[in-house]
């Protein structure tokens, strides 16, 4: 449900001309939701940016997520 909740917010932000991108943990669900942009990550639910307390690795994911927009 998390994917759907954020995808719905994404839809209305995009329709108000705010650019969006989301993390996709389960691509089967993301593909059904059809958001404008997403970054597929190889992690499990509960760990959207990978291992905890790994700031630099997490930041790389955030940077990749931003890069999907431009």
């Amino acid at each position, binding site marked *: 449900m998390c994917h759907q909740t*954020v995808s*719905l917010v994404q839809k209305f932000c995009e329709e*108000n001309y705010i650019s969006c*991108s989301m993390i996709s943990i389960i691509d089967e669900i993301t593909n059904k939701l059809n958001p404008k942009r997403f970054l597929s990550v*190889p992690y499990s639910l*509960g760990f959207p940016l990978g291992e905890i*307390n790994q700031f630099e690795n997490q930041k790389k994911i955030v940077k990749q997520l931003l890069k999907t927009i*431009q």
Partner: protein
Amino acid sequence: MIKINKSKKISHLSFKIKKFLQFYPWKDCAPNQFKSLDKKISDCNVAIVSSAGFVIKNKQKPFDINDKFGDSSYRVIPSNINSNELEEYQKSNSFDHSGIKTDPFSALPIPHLVDLYNKGFIGSVNPRHISLMGANINTSKLIKKSIPDIVQIFKEDKVDIVLFIPV
């Protein structure tokens, strides 16, 4: 250290959850209109929406984890929040909550954005971010009440980019 299953497929979930997700009537969230970003990311104001169900401890009302349709309300989290001020109220039993409890910023990466701002990769970190509890089955309240408020907050703050972090 917590071992993370590298699978991102639906197949790693339990049979019961997998069946539920396979037959769930997912909403089509493709925007009907949109605009391509017309400035550099290094000039953009960036905000986050997380579905981890964080509230500010002792200051904000917890999400209702007993609402069987899911609590569709939202909380505003300021950029200057400390991780020990965040408390998680996520009712979903489909994932391991230990990671976001131990490292809340792994699902609300504000310090990561601050670092990217300090390095000039983004233009600014929005002072307000949004926390939702993702386990919403009935989305009508979310769509009618919370989402218009959230969009208004981002418009008031002149947000250019929103990053979405489902858990």
